[in-house]
């Protein structure tokens, strides 16, 4: 998948001497229409957009993303709506990669093959499945690859050396390094220096893989992790949506401002 959109985005960022910025928002937060508008607007600054498919029992998500997910579900977002958000977005910006992220039960209920087909049809570029680890994800990951969808493997501080090698071997264009032992939305409890050290251990194994760092990244900490190929910000964005709704302000404008500021910090 050498010329995948995901790869191209990393290349472009590298040329500009900066990490790629990856945003995470929940599909349908707080409505289908709004989440599409947010996506369109932040794509001015984001290099890759992750879109969560909301689940009501998310065992690896902290409060901010849970709130966004529950809000989206309450507002009636269904899996097919998520695909239609992606399709619409892709008509607007076909050059921006979209990565869907969520929990396996929803894919399982939808049917793996049907899900992948739909991903392909709506031009999803990548998939992250939080609770389908390696090696259990091997079959699903290769199905994705056959359909030119990037399956994104996760690596965490607890991942052993041997495992690391195996995971990298089976990975596609992008690898997601979880910065610390935490659910999403936790405070960064490991020093950025340590995180970059761990990150470099992954890079050393295979330089051609794009490795992004996520979990605990905010406006305050993003600059310190600049050395990475890419940085993911999720909870800080979801939190802004919650705040804007509470204050009855324009979520699209506020969230875009946050993403613009994040981008400026790593330019």
């Amino acid at each position, binding site marked *: 998948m050498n010329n995948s959109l995901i790869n191209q985005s990393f290349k472009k960022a590298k040329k500009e001497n900066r990490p790629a910025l990856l945003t995470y928002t929940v599909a349908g937060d707080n409505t289908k229409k709004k989440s599409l508008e947010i996506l369109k607007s932040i794509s001015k600054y984001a290099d890759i957009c992750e879109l969560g498919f909301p689940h009501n029992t998310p065992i*690896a998500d902290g409060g901010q993303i849970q709130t966004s997910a529950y809000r989206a579900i309450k507002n009636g977002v269904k899996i097919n709506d998520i695909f239609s958000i992606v399709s619409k977005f892709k008509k607007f910006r076909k050059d921006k990669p979209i990565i869907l992220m969520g929990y*396996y039960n*929803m894919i*399982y*209920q939808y049917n793996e093959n049907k899900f992948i087909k739909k991903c392909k049809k709506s031009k999803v570029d990548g998939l992250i499945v939080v609770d389908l*680890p390696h090696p259990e994800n091997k079959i699903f990951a290769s199905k994705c690859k056959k359909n030119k969808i990037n399956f994104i493997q996760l690596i965490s501080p*607890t991942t052993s050396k041997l495992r690391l090698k195996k995971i990298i071997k089976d990975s596609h264009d992008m690898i997601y390094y979880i910065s610390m032992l*935490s659910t999403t939305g936790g405070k960064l409890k490991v020093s950025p220096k340590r995180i970059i050290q761990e990150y470099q251990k992954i890079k050393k194994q295979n330089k051609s893989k794009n490795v992004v760092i996520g979990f605990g990244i905010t406006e305050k900490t993003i600059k310190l992790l600049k050395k990475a190929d890419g940085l993911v910000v999720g909870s800080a964005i979801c939190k802004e949506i919650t705040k804007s709704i509470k204050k009855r302000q324009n979520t699209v404008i506020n969230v875009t401002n946050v993403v613009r500021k994040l981008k400026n910090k790593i330019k």
Partner: protein
Amino acid sequence: MKLKKNIPLIDQHDKFGFWGGKFGGSFIPETLKKPVEDLTKEFHKLRKKRNFIKKRDFYFKNYVGSPTSFIKLENLSSHLGGAQIWAKVVSEANGGAHKIYNATVHALICKAMGKKYIVGDTGAGYAGKMLSMAAKKFGLKCKIFMGAKDIKRQKPNCDAMRRNGAEIVPVYSGSQTLVDAVSECMRYWVSNCDNTHMCVGSTVGPNIFVKICGWSTAQISRELKIQLKKEFKKIPKKIKLINCVGGGSSAYGFWSEFIDYDKKHIELIGVEAGGPKKSKLHAAPLSRNAKIGILHGAASYVCQNNEGQIQDTESISAGLDYPGVSPIHCFLKDTKRARYTYATDEAALNAYKMVTKFEKLNPSLEPSHAFAEAIKIAPKLSKDTILIVNSCGDAKKDRDILKDRLGKY
């Protein structure tokens, strides 16, 4: 899909942790892979060690109190006519329920792994109470995750947890019951797995937790087998073992020694929570034919909608009020070795009334579901049929609910 003989059911899974090729597994975030692997290795090692078995047996005997008694419910049997009704009074175990077996073993494992902190989930409060007891006994710091709704309805057990020095973390998300408590406990473990051991309160969760819990509660059927032989000289010809099923830890423990028997000889009957008679909601994924889904790291029959969102449940019994169920019970269902049914809130309350009227026994709302089934089928059965109910919990914790619904406790 087939059961194997002479191998404990907890060990009849494939290399990915699936029973019958599709139930169980370990659907966990990457961060938990290592701690789950470490725990798996440790448990594998410990259960083979004579010393560890000796330790377990010592604490089961002197701390949990074993064996719990096996008694005939003469009055109830003669009132109903038909089959003989017996009870295995597991509520005599230290703390008042079977949850003490799993809690004790987890505390021992936690010690063996050199961890000082232990966390667990609870619905009825028994799993939490027992973990707090075991933590105190073995010098561990303990945190219990519990739905806010359950904290209100199971107050006596919460008081006990606090007395034992455990911290109760109320969970306000979702339906504020057991399902949310387990989720929150797993989230906590993701963030603290470097120094903290997690106990899952039933035979649910990632494969290894199903195994540890089942290995622990199996004590119940080991005792019962001896007691049956003692009472009847040999194992009677027609036995039915009736047990309530929430996650399924007491049922597995009650049945494990008898799974190899023919079902015409020893029938296994699991009773789930049917919820209020008038409600569409229930907590009976097996008997109401829920679809397979993934919840809390394992594939099992799960109450859910078409999109894979976990459904709200409803039951008068906090311990049974859970949308999923153990993968080993899914396996027992699909191989037709066990039969699963449900009892409504009202049926469980009526059973509670009847049992307490005729016998000196005070079963909590969970086993009252099992008694409801026993009461229903006993009159239709022959006198030589031995119905045995696992009276796995004491009703003290339910005093507020019983007072409210029956006017007295």
